[in-house]
């Protein structure tokens, strides 16, 4: 039951509008590019210094001087540009990037997000995530509803070190689409075949359910 990672990406792709510059985080967010309709004019930014990021190169055409923020080999589409890191974060902090899609370990009902550190266990660093969440107007979190231990990742208060505060507006999980406002998760859509009751049980934070909740359309 619930969506797989590609289906989560497919649902999020519907949020990408024509004319958007979009920053995609590592993991599920990277998959979103595969599902944006051809008639949508969009440019993907990778914070290591490219606008107009294209798909992976054909075998044998990979270039060590052309990678994305996940250090994967990529291509540049017609109209692409390269720039230095400070310019890249001017685009982000200056709110020139329209949409940021990133993963998370925890999200709280006031819009806080934690995704960079598990004290004593995992210390990889925040990369560009703190700059992105502090500045973007439009942030969508893509993640599984619960962690590997089956515990909710949608909480009243985050328990892990924060990446940013009061910043997440929308969350798309394998179970549901939710909006965050007025210190609560508002259920907008549910995954096909998943009941409201099931989503409620998987959500530790306050979940507001108003009226009939439609199933996601793809």
């Amino acid at each position, binding site marked *: 039951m619930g969506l797989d990672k590609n289906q989560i990406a497919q649902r999020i792709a519907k949020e990408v509008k024509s004319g958007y510059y979009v920053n995609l985080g590592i993991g599920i967010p990277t998959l979103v590019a595969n599902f944006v309709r051809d008639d949508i004019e969009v440019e993907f930014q*990778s*914070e*290591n*210094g*490219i606008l107009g990021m294209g*798909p*992976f*190169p*054909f*075998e*044998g*055409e*990979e*270039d*060590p*001087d*052309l*990678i*994305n*923020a*996940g*250090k*994967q*080999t*990529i291509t*540049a589409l017609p109209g692409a540009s*390269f*720039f*230095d*890191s*400070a310019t*890249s*974060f001017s685009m*982000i*902090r200056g709110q020139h990037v329209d949409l940021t899609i990133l993963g998370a370990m925890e999200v709280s009902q006031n819009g*806080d997000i934690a995704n960079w550190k598990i004290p*004593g266990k995992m*210390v*990889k*660093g*925040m*990369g*560009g*995530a*703190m*700059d992105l969440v*502090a*500045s973007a107007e439009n942030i969508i979190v893509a993640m599984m509803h619960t962690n590997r231990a089956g515990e909710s990742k949608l909480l009243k208060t985050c328990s892990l*070190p*924060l*990446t*940013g*505060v*009061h910043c997440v507006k929308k969350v798309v999980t394998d179970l549901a689409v939710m909006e965050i406002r007025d210190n609560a998760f508002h259920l907008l859509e549910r995954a096909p075949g998943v009941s409201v009751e099931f989503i409620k049980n998987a959500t530790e934070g306050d979940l507001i359910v108003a009226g009939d909740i439609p199933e996601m359309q793809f």
Partner: protein
Amino acid sequence: MITKTVSNVQEACEGIQDRMTFMLGGFGLSGIPENCIAELVRRNVKGVTCISNNAGVDDFGLGLLLQKKQIKKMISSYVGENAEFERQMLSGELEVDLIPQGTLAQRCLAAQSGIPAFFTPAGYGTEVAEGKEVREFNGKMHIMERAFKADFAFVKAWKGDTAGNLIFKGTARNFNPNMCGAATITVAEVEELVPAGTLDPNQVHIPGIFVQRIFQGTAYEKRIEQLTVRKRG
């Protein structure tokens, strides 16, 4: 014209001492100053602080200095690709300052451009903000971050000329231009060193004024960290 050319990496690294602070360009293994890193390993300089977005992988990039325990402190935004790094950090052998990537770039740029400090919203409300001045601008909270201070900046460019002008390629540009002129001495290694007058001034990314020493690099390995390809057809 003022000539910035030195004959090799040994001459370029003249004056390096233990306990200095170095800036190193690159994102992952892309655009790293491979020749200078090899020279730092060869000289076995100890107790250094490295400002670099990443820490290389176990057997390449800054990972080579980590292996020989030459680094006292790392200032980076993401260090996830290096198991030796994680081991030294968790055991307390290595001091680590993890900072947001945009803040890292801007602290280089501030040093380059003579701005002592600036305010950014990145990290507000997180442990990154601890001990830092907080101010509200336009209804939004910001934290104060300071320009870096470094002894040497090591950068890698695609092409350069004898006047120190630099041109970068693709996403190997990353932090390299921001670190030029951000330290007391900036050393640029290039894949192709050409006589002054050869590069089109319209195409120069970094003017030679930000560079003190430039040399023709050799034997670039340019390792790919994550090879991702698609099938034809």
